[in-house]
């Protein structure tokens, strides 16, 4: 379990990094951020890039800012930094709730927000949060910067809309307003494991009724799934047990997850419904408190 041979560059600027990614090369090029997914894959030789572009020196990719109703988290922000950030907690409670569910402290001390999203593990928390909130994913390539909506970003199993020579630079979400609550619920075999299924929910209330519900599910498809039918079922309604059941049933009906060692398809499907009920109820309760 030792990494294969590769070339390695650690550019000091984003320009140089993009150049390095675009330079012709005899093998795969891989961006290295926190390395918490990539280095295990290298050790197992499941990833055998010809060149590694280490972006850890790119200060342009760091920093958490809130401006004009948007929270921007640099791609290179360590998950742990975002977890402890007051700005994140107030501007995006869903992110704040989700991050502690990623692995363990030592993983989050190194793993980055952008790395998790770029890696696009269908069971991971941050892609699910991004899908839930319609995050804007900011990418830079040789042709300049573009913003990719989350709905277009996650294109499949561990695949994204990023081109090989593009770098994810930041994640942008709309800051929450009043009467909004969020929750992330998941079931993993052990503490810190990738979840068998997870649900991100954010609810905005108007009085007692749901003004907007956002729900995304992890672990049940090749990429995070937005539960649009459940969201629609909740809109304009008061959250109670029967409407939760209705929303969960609506979401689950469309799912056809696959089985693995950790959970059967039937299990994932069932638990997704359970988690929708839990997460939406918790988010609504928090929204009520935030009125």
């Amino acid at each position: 379990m030792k990494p294969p041979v590769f070339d390695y560059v650690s550019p000091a600027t984003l320009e140089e990094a993009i150049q390095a990614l675009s330079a012709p090369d005899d093998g795969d090029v891989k961006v290295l951020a926190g390395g918490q997914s990539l280095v295990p894959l290298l050790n197992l030789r499941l990833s055998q890039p010809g060149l590694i572009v280490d972006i850890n020196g790119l200060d342009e990719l760091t920093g958490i800012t809130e401006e004009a109703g948007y929270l921007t988290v640099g791609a290179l922000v360590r998950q742990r930094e975002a977890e402890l950030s007051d700005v994140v907690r107030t501007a995006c409670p869903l992110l704040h709730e989700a991050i502690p569910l990623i692995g363990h402290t030592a993983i989050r001390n190194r793993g980055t927000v952008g790395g998790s999203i770029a890696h696009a593990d269908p069971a991971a928390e941050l892609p699910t949060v991004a899908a839930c909130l319609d995050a804007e994913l900011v990418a830079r390539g040789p042709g300049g910067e573009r913003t990719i909506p989350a709905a277009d970003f996650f294109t499949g199993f561990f695949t994204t809309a990023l081109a090989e020579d593009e770098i994810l630079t930041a994640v942008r979400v709309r800051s929450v307003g009043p009467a909004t609550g969020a929750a992330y619920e998941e079931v993993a075999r052990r503490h810190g494991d990738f979840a068998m299924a997870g649900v991100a929910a954010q609810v905005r209330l108007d009085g007692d009724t749901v003004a907007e519900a956002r729900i995304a599910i992890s672990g049940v498809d090749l990429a995070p799934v937005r539960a649009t039918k459940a969201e629609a079922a909740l809109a304009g309604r008061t959250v109670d047990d029967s409407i939760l059941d209705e929303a969960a049933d609506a979401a689950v009906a469309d799912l056809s997850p696959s089985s693995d060692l950790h959970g059967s398809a039937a299990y994932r499907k069932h638990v997704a419904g359970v988690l929708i009920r839990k997460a939406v109820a918790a988010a609504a309760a928090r929204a009520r408190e935030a009125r």
Partner: protein
Amino acid sequence: MAGGSAISGLVGARVHRKEDRTILTGTGRYIDDVQERGMLHCHFLRSTVAHGRITSIDVSAAREVEGVVRVFTGADMSAITEDLSFAQPIPGLNSPSYPAIARDVVRFVGEPVALVVAESRYIAEDAAALIEIEYDLLEPVMSTAAGLAEGATQLFDDVPGNVVHTDEQLFGDIEAAFAQADHVVTQSLDQHRWACNPMETRGGVATYETGSGQLTYEASTQTTHTLRFLLAGWIRHPIHQFRVTANNIGGGFGLKFSAYREDVAVCAAAKAIGGTVKWVEDRNEHLVAAGAAREEQLTLEAAVKADGTLLGLRVTMKLDAGAYPINPPATVYAGLVRTTLPGPYKLPAYQFRHHIVATNKASYISLRGPWAVETLVRERLMDKIAHTCGISPVEVRNRNLITLDDQPTKMITNVTLENVTAAETFQKLVEMVDLDAVRREQEAARAEGRLLGFGVGTFIEPAPGTQEFWAAVGFPFGSEPCRIRIEIDGKVTAFTPQTPHGQSHETTLSQLIADELGVGFDDIRIVYGDTDATPFSMLGTGGSRAATMASGAVVYGSRELRKRLLEIASHILEASVDDLDIADGVVSVKGAPGASVPIAQIAMGCWLAPEQMPPGTNTEMEFVANYDGEGGGFSQASHACWIEVDQQTGKIEIKRFLVVEDCGKMINPAVVEGQVIGGIAMGVGGMLLEHSAYADDGQYLAATFMDYLMPSAPELPEIEIEHLEFESDKVVGSRGVGEGGTVLAPAALLNAIDDALAQVGRERVTETPVTPTRMLELLGVIEKE
């Protein structure tokens, strides 16, 4: 000799461990820490197919890689080694021999097919990736049922029908028992494969000195002496020129009891190349290829009276042995299960039948209490009998348990039980648990929609067992030696064949010596591992023997040396031996502390000028004691487990876990508790999380720690332990506790799960592990796939 220790002091106290300073400062020498000049690194290329004939292997590109020193194919390796054979004169045992590196046929995913030796592990792996192998695929046999099926593919020519061994043994009048039965209670269990997974994997460093012809193998092993004599034959090396050593060992749990084909290849490579080569198994290799345990299917049929009294028991076991035999032979596992299964219960008649079946998987290996399935199925059967007869799980055990008053008595498997207190531990457990309150709490929880479960279990642990016990199993009991030396300065060195890997023997044996000899704890060193220094034993550290056997050896050895010291001192001090005492390394006359002589002074005289020592005294300051175990014995425990089942997610939380254990005299309670709790953690992990799973095509599914789920701290409960220290009249009243936690915890846990299921009218668990998916299937929430 009187019972107990000569001097009480350290024995029984929570003495700080000798081992801790080393391990906490990271100054130990685990196998991967070994770095020798010019050391080369090994990497095994392993089969990617479960069953196939090697039609071609091309290593030429690998040999060209810069930094590669040697590449061995199966043919290359076979030219310099013998095939491994674990065959023993056991009737009916089909134990095929096999090469260190596969030559013709591969029989499991992960079987070594080539060995690359290079200047670094990185380079060795680069080269291995360039080796090209072609296989003619053969049908893989992936279960005992498939292996036994008519027309099944045969793994080996010399294992007809894939049956490694089959046997049936009858004890008592089983027909009569069933004829008298009011009820026949049946139960079956299909246990999954799970593994030892010590945090340190297997590995070894072999050094061949071309001048002298000496070979040294430093290994991560539980048994240096056995490893030495087995390897010597297979690598064709004269044993007097072969030394095996072990230093810090990062856990073993039974896995490191055997010698493995990789050991053979690494030693042979060092000889062939002439230098030092290192192999450290990585976790991926370990999970795929090191072997796993516990894959057994049992069916039980019990004849019982209406009041729950056991009359007879019929048991059938199928054991999935994987492809290749290791040490001990699989018959030992079957023998252990058969012999131990009646446990601490009165059982008048018993029939046990087993089939050990070869399959295309990694070897079935020892795992902490390799017989454990007997306790698991028996304790679950007791609960089912209780259910059938309408009595409580407590009552059914009380009606059948053998109490101290019943002893000595013989188990139906011809093993004498004496001083066995399983019933007493169970009694104590029951006193500590208000069963009615437990039921009321469960009812209240159900009213709130919550589901609680409660389970108990009890057992005996052959730690070390008795002569009769091991004879019934078909394995040597063996006495235990220890060489103790009082050094020239009065300090003490003891040489033990134990190879401790977490069991704290450096501490416990020092405690015993300190008390027996009256020397300071810090003035004692325990030497282990080195076959050049330690006395021979087949067994090393395993089978929870040390608490009795190694302790006995140091106690007897210390007492002999103490006698010699006192005799010499009695001359010097002109006092009778009976009036002397030793404390803090000084022999003095009781009540006259001024009249004293340091051990150092006696020892120096004995070593340097024995002829000047008092005439007629024994001046040998070194003594090898051999302890026969005084008949040996058992330890015992009862467990109670409280769980809550989340009926929506199927997750099981252990709310409380209570242990009442009796291992006799505790040498160091902190060590006992560590073993008990660690053992329970392993049992819980095995039942709920861990699974060495294969796909139908023989691919291995849990090849990383992301998929092989070791329990971590949040998955485990706080464990409460109550000790009963039943003291026999033997000199060494300590019994082992190394394996019991792992043996009994699964039973208490599964009983608790069954209890929860019963409350909502569902069927019992018949297959493990009890994953959240399985739990929801059992609860009827989701369909089984």
